[in-house]
């Protein structure tokens, strides 16, 4: 039978530990073991981006990582983006620009967009589109999403 492994990670600034099977995905570890159900699973084969989380400053798909692979890392999930209940600029822009409808893909989008703007604070429209092309939304036709990321970038640069 399977062997369990101890995992220690920092998630949203808090140290968390767990004991998992080697095959347990990071997404399932976050959702089931840590109770962080904001990370959603929509394809489980690495195409749709709904499960995107930030691992050591890199946006990764939590469905394609095993929990044991993130030992010792620092992870930010959608639950960790807001500070004391105050939305981060990307979340706020999604709210203002109608960047979400059913909300299921939204955690992946706001995490991806937050990571995108951290690495490229002044993206062109084409760079925004390419930066988010690994996330699928079925409700919005991406219109509000693209507007939101553009507006968040502007706001973040203005407040620098």
């Amino acid at each position, binding site marked *: *039978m399977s062997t369990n492994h101890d995992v220690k990670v920092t998630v949203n600034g808090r140290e968390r530990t767990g004991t998992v*099977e080697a*095959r*347990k995905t990071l997404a399932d570890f976050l*959702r089931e073991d840590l109770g*962080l*159900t*904001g*990370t*959603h*699973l*929509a*394809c*489980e*084969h690495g*195409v*749709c981006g*709904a499960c995107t989380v930030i691992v050591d400053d890199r946006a990764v798909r939590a469905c394609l990582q095993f929990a044991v692979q993130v030992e010792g890392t620092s992870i930010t*999930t*959608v*639950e960790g*983006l*807001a500070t004391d209940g105050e*939305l981060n600029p990307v*979340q706020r822009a*999604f*709210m*203002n620009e*109608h960047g*979400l*409808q*059913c*909300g*299921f*893909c*939204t*955690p992946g989008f*706001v995490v991806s967009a937050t990571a995108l703007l951290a690495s490229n604070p002044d993206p062109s429209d084409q760079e*925004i*589109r*390419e930066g*988010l*092309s*690994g*996330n*699928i*939304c*079925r*409700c*919005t*036709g*991406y*219109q*509000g*999403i*693209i507007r939101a990321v553009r507006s968040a970038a502007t706001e973040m640069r203005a407040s620098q």
Partner: protein
Amino acid sequence: MSMTSATPAARYIGQSVTRKEDQRLLTGHGQYVDDITLPGLLHAAFVRSDIARGAITRVDADAARALPGVVAVYTWSDFHGGFGASWHAMLGEELMVPPPLAITDVRHVGDPIAIVVATSRYIAEDACDLIEVDIDAQDAVVEFSTAAEDTDNLVHAGWGLTTNAMMAVPFTPMSPDLDQAFDDAAHVVDCTIRQNRYVCVPMEGRGIVADYSTGRDELDVVCSCQSVHETRNFFSRYLQIPESSVRVSARDVGGGFGQKMFVFREECAVVLASRLLGQPVKWIEDRHENLVAAPHSRNEQGVVRLAIDADQIIQAITIDHVGDVGAYPACPAVMNPQLLPGPYKIPRLGFSMNMVWTNTMGKGAYRGPWMFETTAREMAIDNAARVLDIDPIEFRRRNLLAAADLPFTSPGLQVFSEITPLETLEQALEMLDYDAFRAEQKAARAEGRLLGLGCSVYVEPTSMSGPTLATEGATIRVESSGKVVAFLGTTSHGQSVETTMAQVVADTVGVRYEDVTIVQADTQSTPYGPGTGGSRTAVIAGGAARQAGEVVRDKIVQIAAHHMEADPADLEVSNGVVSVAGTPARSMTVKEVADHAYRFADQLPADLGAGLEATVRFKPTRFPTWSNATHLCVVEIDRDTCVPHVVRYIVSEDCGRMINPSVVEGQIFGGVIQGMGGVLLEDFVYDSSGNPLTTTFMDYLLPTTTEVPEIEIGHIETESTTNPGGYKGMGECGAIGAHAAVANA
């Protein structure tokens, strides 16, 4: 009680207010079905057929049952005799949900054969791999256009049927002089239009947590669905327990688009498993299952004939139609032939219709399930314009209905009023700058570039009647704090219902938007509603919310008038304050009124009952509520790669008075991209043996940020008189118009 006060001026209606849903959804605190955990929760997975048609000769689950963590493996014999009726009120008693598991044969790839219940999803899937199934494969019926003629291979031979035709309507002329019109026509142009199979693909797949308490004989269900009340009623019949013993809720639902309107056979299996085990069971489908085994859509074909006179006036339209409903349709949604003439002055109509079974995944609803009439007509009109070498826009102008032509009764017996087909066409053309575009196109063609324009004009029957659909209920309560709660029979799978209905309630009652909460999608607390779908929420639930709000506002005024010793006719309610018109200093807050309604109710006069609450059921004055739109699409095709690129996309639409313009536009954006995806990227493909070939997002391609154009939207607001707010439905419109517009371009 008499109606005493006028409806306050709109303060929130018409505004793109911040959505009430957003804070929780943006911070990862939505509650979707997979987020539910319960003590003792078990996890289910299905063994499904990988053969399209054949007899099951052996199922060996011994190894699976022996796997540690496996609690049960059930096949048909475990469920046989354990359930009652399996029909939906909306669809009628004849169309039953298929048995929860295959009985003796399989009829499509994905047909569920066994359900495994285990302590984790991982173990349940391990166990599925250990189950051996032998199937004696037979030739599958895959191509639907010839399926009706195939009498050797029958999808439902197991039911004793001798044909693959589910329904055949022979050619029916709706006009006595139809043949004459074709004989007299200067031009008769026919063409075959085929719309491919593309599917809803909600980002959250299907899922259910079923918790049957054997001690109490009660079922508690959380599921990803579009109708909690119909799901409750279904399981009440299915388990033969009273409705009050079944609770169904769905806090957040990650998209539906029609796919989640009805109860699925897998959900039945999960409920039966929970009852047999006396433990809660969760099933969350994976993407492969959603693509292969959740209801499919579109996949229709028609031969369209147009009779056109010398003045380019269309004198008649006919279609010979065939639509694929798969093996087990969730609902046999196909083209509505009565809408084939669409928003045109075409005086004559004839049609035949065929719905055929095939050994493929069954059909369900998808955003405008009847919409093949628009695809067929609009593509046929462009085709005729090409054949006759005339401008397709000018051709439409000559034939479209304008507001001045209304009311108009079509040969399909549809009575149109309060629509603006020609007006939306003109607005869209102005947004495009049509003449400038044609000049640009001419120059581009001269350079060898392939630049095209597609057009699509349609009328949409929103808020239809029919079984269960005609009404919605609303209960509005002012709590003792002065906050307002509206309980609605709706669900929301992305439509912003908590926001738009709060706007309606806030304006009607006269309180702040921030002080209104919408409670929905819980059968325990909300009035019956058939579900969110069919573009019916704004019109029907909005009508109910408004009428209930008016009753509550009147009672607020009555109580305030009593305490302020004022004439009710002089009082207005606004921003949570009741005041004497023209004398704002004389006022009391709605919170103070609520105090009198609850805490000090004994001091109220006898004719003013305690409490501040009203329940109404609303029915529009007529059905349907028509909305309409024109889509224009500009496409350039790369000569070297043959890849089409959508350069511009313009929509001019008339959905009556808009409650929230951002929400309206969001619905259009999403629908347009779904229709565009169906033409340019999405295609669910079976091989000739009935094997699905597009079973992942790497094969079934959805539009992403790099493929979508910026969509430009123009509005015409012609208020509808079917409901007091002047609203029209519009949730399906984008998806209805986009297919033909993109294909024509």
